[in-house]
């Protein structure tokens, strides 16, 4: 299922992506595009391979032994597998937020700077500036401004996730990959993050994997539905978010919507 997006910049795209784990194919025929300034939602039942798919975009899949990825993945038009490409630079350009917020066991300020300081030398002034601007961007600054030197582990889960977002933003990514970023959070923190995403999308394109259909419907511009077909994860439907939700056609998707109607 391949849809052409006219007149917009394509930031990230895959062509016929296939993922195998030890001889078993778990994802097949994955072709999708993420345009600049938009949020692409990836939805579908658990086990379909959504998280694995996300990890292909920043080559984090390489950390799992036995996982083999075939097909094209392009960031800003160039393949992410090009030999001259430094994978660590790629991962800074394509940031990732995980389901469980993973704060490092250092203070809040150090957390925000953790990735950024590897990229280039920052003076103390530049560091302070960076910390403040990123924390403001995730609406955390007012809450933590007088306890920057305190351990980040003391923050609430919702605050920790926003801290992780600030940390990721500090390395200036072009695309953000989000793996169910609000499923471990309470409703208030969830809507706080959702507001942030809507505000941020003009600056960073976002790929959002989510189980929360309301979330997908409300904040994603376009949606790709990944379901198991013949035992392999595939994109069964793709397109404008409202259109896909109002008129679901693929049988697997309709099943999923039926089951998930509790959400």
């Amino acid at each position: 299922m391949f849809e052409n997006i006219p007149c917009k910049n394509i930031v990230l795209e895959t062509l016929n992506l296939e993922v195998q784990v030890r001889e078993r194919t778990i994802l097949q025929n994955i072709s999708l595009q993420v345009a600049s300034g938009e949020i692409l939602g990836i939805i579908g039942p658990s086990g379909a391979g959504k998280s694995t798919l996300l990890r292909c975009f920043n080559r984090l899949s390489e950390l799992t032994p036995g996982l083999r990825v075939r097909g094209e993945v392009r960031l800003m038009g160039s393949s992410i597998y090009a030999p001259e490409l430094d994978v660590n630079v790629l991962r800074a350009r394509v940031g990732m937020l995980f389901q469980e917020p993973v704060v490092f066991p250092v203070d809040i300020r150090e957390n925000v700077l953790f990735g950024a300081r590897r990229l280039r030398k920052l003076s103390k002034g530049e560091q302070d500036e960076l910390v403040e601007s990123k924390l403001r961007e995730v609406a955390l600054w007012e809450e933590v401004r007088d306890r920057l030197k305190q351990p980040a582990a003391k923050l609430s889960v919702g605050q920790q996730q926003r801290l992780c977002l600030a940390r990721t933003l500090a390395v200036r990514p072009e695309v953000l990959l989000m793996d169910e970023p609000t499923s471990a959070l309470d409703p208030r923190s969830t809507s706080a993050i959702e507001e942030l995403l809507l505000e941020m999308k003009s600056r960073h394109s976002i790929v959002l994997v989510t189980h929360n259909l309301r979330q997908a419907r409300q904040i994603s511009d376009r949606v790709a539905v990944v379901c198991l077909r013949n035992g392999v994860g595939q994109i069964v439907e793709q397109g404008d978010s409202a259109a896909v939700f109002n008129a679901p056609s693929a049988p697997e998707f309709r099943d999923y919507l039926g089951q998930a109607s509790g959400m």
Partner: protein
Amino acid sequence: MTRVLSWLLSALAIGAFGFLLCVFLFQSGPVWQSEGTRYITGVSWFYRQHVFGALSLIYGSLAVTAVALLLAGPLGLGAAVFLSEYLPQNARLALKIPLELLAGIPSVVFGLLGIALLRDWVYRTFAKFDPLSGDTLLTAGILLAVMILPTMVSLFDDALRSVSGAQRRAARALGLTRAETIWNIVLPQASRGIASAFLLSVGRALGETVAVFLVIGRQDNNLPHPWYSPAPLLEAGQTLTTKLGGAETNIAFGDPLHWAAIMGLGVLLLVLTAGATCLGTLGRRRHA
């Protein structure tokens, strides 16, 4: 019935160990009375004249242990880092097996290897320091390093593995290289386990008897001036364990004060090894 039996046998087991401790403490009483703190701070040990100062023995034990840890520590940590961070699970387990086998070589066989391989090498290599023979504190230290190496690798590996994968993934996802992740995330978070590994290895090294016995020269009263310079390592020495394992133990039994002095060395050894092992155990994050 099972319950009664379990309690009885457990009491027997614990009682035996308690009895051991008491025996050492009480039997060593006379020398503490006779020498007081000079027992630990005194440099000379002349049993015929009833002069019992254990300091050069303590120095020997600590020097040999220090050399062993300095050599085996970094090497073992490097090996553990590679095992834990660079190799997949299967390869890791497979390679741990040859290392475990090294751990199984008996102490006396290590002593043989020390005599056959290390002794002459040390004598030739450090010839410009003019050692009397190849039986030196340094030789014992190097031998001990090889003996504790597999244990250290295993303990370090456990410590590194206890750092959660989520931390590593988050760091890599930020764009940190593997080396940066190891340096900034894994090692700092494993530091408590690594310190425990060192403590446990100290306990192990202090308690080694036979291998050290065969290559250390067993020379009493050799406390060097100053004690921190490297050349004295090239002299023959004596540790708490080698003194206990030597001929004096048999001779001492007839003489209450001499025997008390020997038992006192046992008390020192017990305190040092139990202390190190206990602290090391407390610091380890045990799996489930």
